[in-house]
């Protein structure tokens, strides 16, 4: 059983393990002989002279990625033991696990910071201390996509304009009369055989081939369609690289069952595993599955510009209102909705840290990240052939515009959403969520909060707040005092609760996920007796 934080006094400790090639180095804040089982134990040298704090943070709600944090592991080196180890062992990029818990049984500890040794410039030492800087292990999962570019080494008769061009990545449904209904451009990889390629990977379907937006006959004018190489050849066609554009309709990545990978959670999972090398054991399958059920609409993207996977996944998450956390060494996406009240842990006055003058470690800010807006203007459904957005939409909150006497606009380019109804709904939600003066609460909490994770929601009762739901965006764990500083966004407002639904609003059962503001019955159900609808909407 992992460590369960309670309010009880305890012998709290922090353990650090460096998993090197030939050995594992084990350190703690004091000498500890930790028992892993009845037959296995290990000694953790008490060399952590300054345990310090571990900080974890989600980016702003507009960019919901968890920031990559570093932590300086300061180890006692007065006997030069660390210097000797650093001299003979390879630390670079090796895994590090930071455990938090109490007692001498390993089962009473939880891995709170899976990390890796920073390289280069990750180690310093002198005659007192060795400082080994470790970074969140996800740093190793970043890639620049697309990975491959077209070269004449790979394609001897490559058309000149495609030399050095990234081999695109293709997600979603781009079929004629389905999905985006847009076409994907193809690169001529063999000018002698007029062979074209549409992606740097296997695709699910090439439904149509178009020359200058006119569909060719797949039987007589196209040959050699290969889904595994995403290639085909023109038959009996002239091709002028300067004036002709060859494109296709079809489907990008598909599952083993040949269904299109297009829901946000499965797309995120595929991006991470296929391109970034993230193992399935580093993904919390339950979390992906849960989000997959909650956010079930379709996304699509043609990735032809090289950029970091952080950018691509960040845009995917933001457009779909998902947070991506890293819990106990696993990626764990989470849809940003108000949790059921029963799932939110209550924190009260006696959890809040006080200074010597009895002043509470409690501070309220209003919209510190300035994400207020009462108008969202969005563009979406990028056409990679014409290189322009094909959808535009504007959502207004006119009541807020009248209240503050100004229109505060946020421009938003959507890269993954393409369906006009979804775009309208999404930006409608956005302006409803941020058309407030949203509250952020900074509060220092005692031991009960030690195991809280980013994007967890808590209910805080203190001062003028009564069971106010906060989504934790920042957690700073003090490894000496075993206390936690948090910053949480008021999801009472961010969820848009308490707002009126329009007269024409669809029923809850048929509403797209993300819709808000439905009447409840007297015991909190939107649909009487349906547990999933309890406490989703609140009156105040």
């Amino acid at each position, binding site marked *: 059983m992992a460590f369960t934080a309670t309010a009880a*006094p305890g*012998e709290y400790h922090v353990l650090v393990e460096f998993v090197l090639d030939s050995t594992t180095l084990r350190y703690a804040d004091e000498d500890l002989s930790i028992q892993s089982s*009845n*037959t296995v134990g290990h000694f953790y040298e008490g060399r952590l002279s300054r345990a310090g704090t571990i900080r974890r943070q989600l980016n702003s709600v507009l960019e919901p990625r968890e920031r990559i944090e570093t932590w300086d592991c300061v180890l006692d080196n007065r006997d030069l033991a660390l210097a000797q180890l650093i001299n003979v062992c390879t630390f670079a990029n090796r895994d590090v696990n930071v455990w938090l818990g109490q007692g001498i049984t390993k089962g009473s500890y939880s891995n709170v910071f899976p990390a890796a040794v920073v390289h280069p410039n990750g180690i310093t030492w002198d005659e007192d201390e060795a400082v080994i800087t470790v970074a969140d292990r996800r740093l190793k999962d970043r890639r620049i996509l697309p990975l491959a570019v077209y070269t004449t080494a790979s394609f001897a008769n490559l058309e000149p304009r495609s030399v050095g061009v990234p081999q695109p990545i293709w997600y979603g449904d781009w079929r004629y009369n389905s999905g985006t209904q847009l076409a994907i451009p193809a690169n001529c990889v063999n000018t002698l055989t007029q062979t074209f390629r549409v992606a740097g990977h296997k695709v699910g379907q090439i439904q149509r081939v178009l020359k200058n937006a006119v569909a060719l006959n797949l039987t007589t004018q196209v040959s050699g369609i290969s889904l595994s190489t995403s290639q085909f050849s023109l038959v009996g066609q002239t091709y002028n690289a300067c004036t002709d554009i060859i494109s296709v309709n079809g489907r990008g990545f598909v599952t083993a069952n040949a269904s299109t990978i297009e829901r946000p959670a499965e797309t995120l999972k595929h991006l991470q595993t296929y391109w970034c090398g993230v193992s399935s054991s580093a993904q919390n399958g339950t979390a992906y599955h849960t989000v997959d059920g909650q956010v079930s609409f379709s996304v699509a993207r043609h990735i032809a510009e090289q950029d970091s996977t952080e950018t691509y996944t960040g845009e995917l998450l933001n457009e779909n209102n998902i947070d991506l956390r890293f819990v106990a060494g696993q990626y764990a996406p989470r849809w940003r909705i108000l949790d059921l009240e029963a799932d939110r842990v209550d924190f009260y006055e006696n959890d809040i*840290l006080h200074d010597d003058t009895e002043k509470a470690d409690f501070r309220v800010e209003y919209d510190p990240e300035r994400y207020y807006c009462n108008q969202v203007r969005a563009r979406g459904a990028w056409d990679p052939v014409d290189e322009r957005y094909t959808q535009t939409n504007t959502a207004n909150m006119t009541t807020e515009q009248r209240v503050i006497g100004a229109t505060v606009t946020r421009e938003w380019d959507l890269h993954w959403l393409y369906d006009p109804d979804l775009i309208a709904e999404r930006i409608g939600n956005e302006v409803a969520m941020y058309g407030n003066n949203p509250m952020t609460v900074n509060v220092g909490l005692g031991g009960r909060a030690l195991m809280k994770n980013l994007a967890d929601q808590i209910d805080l009762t203190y001062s003028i707040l009564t069971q106010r739901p906060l989504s934790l965006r920042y957690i700073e764990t003090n490894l000496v005092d075993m206390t936690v500083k948090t910053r949480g966004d008021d999801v009472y407002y961010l969820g848009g609760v308490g707002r009126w639904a329009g007269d024409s609003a669809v029923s809850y059962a048929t509403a797209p996920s993300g819709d808000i503001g439905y009447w409840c019955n007297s015991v909190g159900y939107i649909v009487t007796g349906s547990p999933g609808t309890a406490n989703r909407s609140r009156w105040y």
Partner: protein
Amino acid sequence: MADKVRYLLPDKGVLDSATLVVSLVASTESSGLPPRNVQDEHIRKVYRGSSDRLSEYLRYRFAAATTLNTLFIGKHNFTKNAIVLWQGNTTSNFATPALSYQIGVATDSRGNVISHLAYFWSTVPTSYAHWRLHIKDSGNATTNLEVGRIMGGRYDEPTRDIRDGFTRELVDPSRITKTAGQQGYPNVKRKYTQITYRVGGMSELMDDTMYGVYNEVGTSTPFVLALNPETEPIKETYYGMFEGNLRRVHRVGAFHDLEPLTFSEKL
């Protein structure tokens, strides 16, 4: 009652001597926490058995018959009802050991077990090549018995009574972060004893003794210090290290005053 302190310095220790001890084995052991840990000066680097709390032992074999009159067993997890035997024999077969001392587990006034044991023999016991620490603790709630540093050897005892001048301070380094109403979330740490020794009018002989001890261990080597070895061999015996420098003030008549010298317990 001999009213003198005793101390066991590493140079008089035999149980952790790499040259004297030929082998050190245990009845069972947890992987990663082997018997040799009891020879490590880090008292919390324990040897841990794997299952046999009913009859667990650590057995030393020496190259030749060896004598000791001091035994310190640090950081154990025995219950107060545990039977702890220190046995000597001429062979490794301890079915009927030639020598067997039972050491009682001590408790404080609240009945809580003191996590170390110590034993001092007034007369030097017979020499044996085989020594064994045998524990029977059937009532222990934990399956795994554990023992930290074990020091054994021959104690030193200064000729002059130097008990006078010691100040003992029990330190609680626990950290409590306050919440409203003076409540808090304690991060509990182990309490340890800090001993300060200050004495005036030391003779040249006593001054030499203090110099010799300090010169031997400095502030880097732990040793066993017993303030009341015959009356309270467990409660007033400590394993720890000096902190700070040895300062002696010269007085007329070849006397010396010892400025406060601190000894901190390790547990």
